[in-house]
């Protein structure tokens, strides 16, 4: 899975959660010039009760750290990767305010008063850092699931060594090739393979050959 920098934000939606003032005007003007549509929320409004309605590939939030930004997300979303990129507006450079912004998931900060300069930099850094973080989290999930699948891989190799007379290298190579044929990761394939062996063993007499098990997986794949 690749990850690429966004440089043109045309077509994105900016949601401003800040009080109406000169900074809001400058931000609206500059974001519109950058090709974004701008929507405003009033601080304190429960506007984000349904974070699933946000699209992380389209939306970006600008949140004023001087208001109670903790209420932006429902509690379960705090301290997690937020449902869309957040850029924090900083007035008071105090630890409590900065902590609140980071808890909301801010990946870039923009100093108030906003005058125009700095908006593109904050957008560029904020959105791309968010995307990079999300990319890493997805990779992490993928690795976690692979790690869980290692148990099936080991079981399958042990089975092939024991019952088919292969050495461990040949057993792994066989499983890897078969997983590629069925377009799955080797771990996911082994999980199905082990299940096939178990289920056919109870139905018939003894464990099936590796080729019979693979043929069964393939025919299952065709049916689904």
């Amino acid at each position, binding site marked *: 899975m690749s990850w690429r920098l966004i440089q043109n934000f045309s077509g994105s939606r900016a949601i401003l959660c800040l009080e109406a003032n000169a900074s809001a005007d400058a931000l609206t003007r500059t974001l519109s*010039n*950058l090709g974004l549509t701008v929507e405003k929320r009033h601080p304190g409004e429960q506007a984000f009760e349904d974070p699933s309605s946000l699209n992380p590939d389209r939306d970006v939030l600008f949140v004023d750290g001087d208001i109670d930004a903790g209420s932006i997300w429902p509690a379960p979303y705090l301290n997690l990767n937020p449902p869309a990129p957040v850029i924090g507006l900083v007035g008071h450079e105090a630890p409590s305010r900065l902590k609140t912004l980071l808890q909301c998931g801010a990946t870039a900060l923009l100093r108030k008063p906003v005058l*125009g300069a700095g908006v593109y930099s904050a957008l560029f850094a904020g959105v791309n850092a968010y995307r990079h973080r999300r990319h890493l989290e997805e990779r992490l999930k993928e690795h976690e699931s692979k790690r869980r699948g290692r148990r099936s891989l080991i079981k399958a190799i042990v089975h092939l060594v024991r019952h088919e007379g292969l050495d461990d290298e040949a057993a792994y190579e066989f499983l890897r090739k078969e997983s590629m044929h069925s377009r799955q990761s080797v771990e996911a394939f082994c999980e199905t393979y082990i299940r096939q062996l178990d289920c056919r063993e109870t139905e018939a007499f003894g464990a099936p050959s590796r080729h019979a098990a693979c043929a069964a997986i393939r025919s299952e794949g065709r049916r689904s």
Partner: protein
Amino acid sequence: MAVQRYAVGLLFSSTGPYSVVSRSMMNGALLALDEINTSSDLGVTLEPVARNPAGSNANYAAMADALLSKGIKHVVGCYTSSSRKEIIPYFEKHDALLWYPSHYEGFETAANVVYTGAAPNQHIIPLIDYLTVNHGNRAFCIGSNYIWAWENNRILRETVLARCGSVVAERYFPVGETGFASVIDAIIAARPSFVFNTLIGTSAYQFFRDFRRHAAEAGINQARDMPVASCSLSEPELDEIGQDAVDGHISASVYFASLKSAANAAFIASYRARFPKGPAPSADAEASYLAVKLLGISLAFAGTEALPHVKAAAARLEIEAPQGKVRIDEATLHTYLTPRIGRSTKSAQFEVIMEAKAPVRPDPYLVRSSPRFDIAVPPRAVRLVS
């Protein structure tokens, strides 16, 4: 009718490394100032307060601060982006307006700046279109090592790669560098479809001369087979290149002195009469001329020099400039201008070889013409050559 008098700052480097273009800009501004002040129906007199920062960014900052501290609300000036970036904070602090009259690389929309020169979609994008259609898609980039060259080369690279072309090489030199023998050998060996030049000032003039001579020695018709294309080359600079290498260079600009129109004929005639010693009128001179014209007329319509009123008045204007109709885009405070491509001639002028049908809306962030994603190019370990 009572005549309103307004002091207007003029901040041009009439000495220093880019003084040739700056002096033509100053001339353009003074010409418009005369026209505003002698116009019987505007009822406005602009009193120029000129300062010469001599190309030093520190001087720009100190002089801008001094002008604005005196209460001046409108200043016309700057050529380089670095000088403009240097003084914008003072305009924000004093809530004054800078009228910036030069083409530049974009990526800015300051609320305290009106931009009357070309934005990137009005110079580099039309230039790349012209080059890839008429000369091919293998580019060799050579430039002065600063933002103008870096950003224009990025735009060129992205556009050319998207069209299945290639950038043979990208070479940068310190501003003022004049030793180009080895890069010229590299260009001649690579035989690109065109050379994309972002060198400025004396470096550019030397490169044009040396490249023409070396190519001729190698039996190459440089102007025909490996033309040099620039977004910044203007008539006063053609004079600096000199007779032996002046012709056959391609330049993208919204204005050329050779344009055939009544408004331009009048502009050129008054310019030459007022400034017989030159420098020759250029695109940036015309941008300075129209900055002062737009400022003067806006002040007359607004009846005050307060920024919101002047900006609102400016956004309602459409004037017949030497290049054709121009108007200010209220959202970006950039100007609708007419992109053109010119080829230089032996007489140090440009013949227009391509022209947009109508003024083009400014797009300073290229939101309508650049790809959403950055093009993955391996990072370069070394940028500076020599």
